[in-house]
């Protein structure tokens, strides 16, 4: 079977901004694929090109082996002919139609027989637990319910590909988590391919089979959530995908010292063989992968915060700050105390490379 979507050199330029730059990507049938990146990196633009709302400045787009968009041939299949479902951040449910009419609208457009329209609308409403609200007008309903209408409407036509643009960003945090599972359940039930745009890495990790991390229109990495978490391609991906510590270091006599905290002793860990002596390095680590230990580099506890079951520490090695998070039962260090740290896994990055928070 051919891929659900294939993007070749897809590029979009707005004035002087390259919103999407030479994007190459293949998404398989039935996959749940996320676009992850900070706001303004080009996720929506990519999705809108896939949907057919934007033309391509360069590149081609295939779906199921069929050409959908091509800048070379100036060919664009209009959005209404692509048979995709789409859900927007601002819900975009039609306030002048009842819930039922909203969901039935795409089926009526397709001129399906009456009984089939009724059947499929009711099924979509049932799948999104909206049967009771069918005759109500959307403005009377909560944000979560409105987004369910949008989902039901997109599901009703039985699309091959479902495009979701930050569908949960306008919802309360607790509802957001619940809806994630509902989207996943809908996918299992109907078997469509999902393309999920988000700037929330937890959401992307929880939902996707594979994902892509973008920065300023350029793909940084494509892979499974765990691969990306464990093997980030660069400093940007590392910092964007989870909590991160970057510690400036110097190598002296085969040992690693914190730059600005040499008096605290060496940091444990291996030094990669191919380090360039002319470059200054940061070591990178997740706050959860640093342990308190009887020996190791010395640090001072500056702040201690309880976050439910885990404790978040702000530590200082010399004058360099870092965060450590430990489960409560392993948390022995007290405020103001000096402790020793062991690093479980170190990654080395050029100090000048950008992190996500700086962009």
């Amino acid at each position: 079977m051919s891929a659900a979507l294939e993007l070749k050199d897809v590029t979009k330029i707005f004035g002087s901004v390259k919103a999407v730059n030479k994007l190459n990507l293949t998404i398989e049938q039935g996959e749940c694929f996320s676009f992850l990146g900070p706001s303004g990196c080009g996720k929506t633009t990519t999705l809108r090109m896939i949907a057919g709302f934007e033309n391509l400045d360069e590149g081609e787009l295939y779906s199921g082996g069929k050409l959908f968009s091509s800048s070379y041939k100036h060919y664009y299949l209009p959005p209404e002919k692509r048979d995709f479902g789409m859900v927007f951040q601002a819900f975009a449910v039609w306030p002048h139609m009842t819930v039922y009419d909203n969901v039935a609208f795409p089926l009526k457009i397709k001129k399906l027989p009456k009984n089939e329209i009724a059947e499929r609308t009711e099924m979509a409403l049932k799948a999104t637990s909206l049967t009771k609200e069918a005759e109500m007008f959307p403005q009377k309903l909560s944000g979560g319910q409105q987004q369910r209408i949008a989902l039901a409407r997109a599901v009703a036509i039985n699309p091959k590909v479902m495009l979701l643009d930050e569908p949960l960003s306008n919802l309360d945090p607790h509802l957001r988590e619940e809806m994630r599972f509902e989207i996943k359940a809908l996918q299992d039930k109907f078997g469509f391919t999902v393309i999920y745009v988000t700037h929330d890495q937890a959401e992307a990790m929880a939902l996707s089979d594979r994902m892509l991390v973008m920065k300023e229109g350029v793909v940084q990495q494509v892979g499974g959530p765990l691969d990306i978490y464990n093997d980030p391609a660069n400093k940007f991906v590392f910092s964007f995908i989870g909590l991160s510590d970057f510690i400036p270091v110097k190598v002296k006599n085969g040992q690693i010292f914190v730059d600005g905290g040499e008096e605290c002793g060496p940091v444990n860990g291996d030094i990669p063989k191919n380090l360039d002596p002319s470059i200054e390095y940061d070591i990178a680590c997740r706050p959860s992968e640093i342990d308190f230990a009887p020996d190791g580099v010395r640090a001072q506890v500056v702040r201690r915060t309880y976050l439910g079951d885990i404790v978040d520490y702000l530590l200082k090695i010399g004058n360099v700050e870092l965060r450590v998070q430990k489960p409560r039962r392993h948390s022995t260090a007290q405020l103001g105390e000096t402790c020793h740290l062991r690093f479980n896994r170190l990654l080395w990055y050029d100090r000048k490379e950008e992190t996500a928070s700086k962009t």
Partner: protein
Amino acid sequence: MSKAVKVQKKFGMAEVALIFSIAILVVVVAVPVIMIFLTAFFKDGHFNLAGVVEVLKQKDTYLALKNSLIIAFGVTLFSTIIGVFFAWLLARTDIPCKKALNAMFMVPFMLPSFICAMAWKVLLSPRSGYINKMLMAMFHLDSAPIDIMTMGGIIAIETMYLFPFVFLQVSGALERMDPTLEESARISGASLWTITRKITLPLVMPSIVAGALLVCLYSLAHFGVPSILGVEKGIYNIPTKIYERIYASGGSYEAIRVGTILATILVICATLILKLQNVVLKKGRFQIIAGKSMRPVVLKLRGMRWPLFIICVVYLLLTVVMPTVTIFLIGGLKTYGLSFLPKNMTFANYAEVFQMKMTRSAIWNSVYLSTLTAFVTMLAGVMISYVIVKMKVKGKFILEFLGVLPYSLPGTVIALGCILTWSGKFGINLYNTAGIIFVAYIARYMAFSIKSNSAALEQVSDSLEEASRSCGATHWQTLTHIVVPLIRPGMINAFFLIFLPALRELTTSVLLYGPTTRTIGVAIYALNEDGETVRAAALAGIALIIIFIGETFIKGLLARLDKTKRSA
């Protein structure tokens, strides 16, 4: 101590403001309306419904009512079609030069419709219209092909200058609408045509209806166009009939009584229209405003792109440029009826406008009356809306009731009310003075002021005032340092919403002017009636220039001043 505080509270600023606000509205608006109803329904102290029926049975009053309704209906219908079409064209298609077109479609709003009606009469009157004569010569016709002095002509001309009400409402709604509402229909498989019918139009329907009802309200009580195009041919609507009756009888009581009966009908129609508008707006106000601004998908017109653009340009040339140019050309003719050849043209008429006592005083009257009215009404509006929107005070409902009253009062009604109220009945006689025009203008434009200022005040969250009070500022200090600076754009807006229409007012002034208190509108109208077409056109030309300067130059300058003050 506690007692003293209580007493002080009872007569605090809120109560004083409330009483003062109510007093203004009662004197300026309520009393004149009550006088109209009393005059209409009571004769010699007795309730007299038979007299009302008798007046309505007279053929000419009955016809005037019918004409008013037909004209209002026709104008509303065509204005809605044209307004929605152009708004959609500019907001949802890839028509070229959108910005320029958008600005140009606002111009018909600035043009006083009775001045344009004069121009159209010059061009298309059946006997001597320039275009008619030209067409007759070109095609060897025996009679004029187009007669503008008919019901159809009146409807056409009013439509040309009233459709911006609809255009503005609809293009505003289309611009604010969340584009994903349309995109989600598109991805559902709907074509652009289906989306327009099933999604876009239904969602902006409340705005369409709101604009249409505004047009209807305005046209129903409009004096200028029917008086210039209709009266000569015996076509009257209610305002022109009232004028004719009063004018013909030299202001006799009986004529005024007939006027009040017709005026009562206008008030009833206007009230119904406003009720309808409220119902529509309340029921159909959809939350369609976008969270993020993004361009909506536009319909690609392809082959129709330039033809439609040309239609827009031709429409604007016909309705804006041609009448304006005509006015200036006529104003430059040595004698009316000559052709527009250089040898027949002169600047003398324009110079004369500033030399003739009558025209000079008309310009002066209009300028100072508009400025004064705009200023006073704006300030009164600030106080009244502040009490309505912000204050918690007993008896506010009286003010809320009185506050909506000005909306349903057409200009003719206000003029009649003012004649009845300010002609010495209550010890003050302003008849034939500028004073009566001044109080009538205040009544007429109070609605604009309250609307603009209330809208601005509703934007100011209560917490801003509370924050100021908690910093130790008094109520008065809070008002002057926090509230007034925040609503200043609303106040400036109110000023111009009053100043500019007042400058060219005709409907009210024509019933109230005295020998020395003609306004620009009245002077143009009177000159035109006396057959002094050339002089009327010259004065109209000067008026257009004054209005244009007011609309663009002063407004822009003040807006900029305000902005720099804010950013500084």
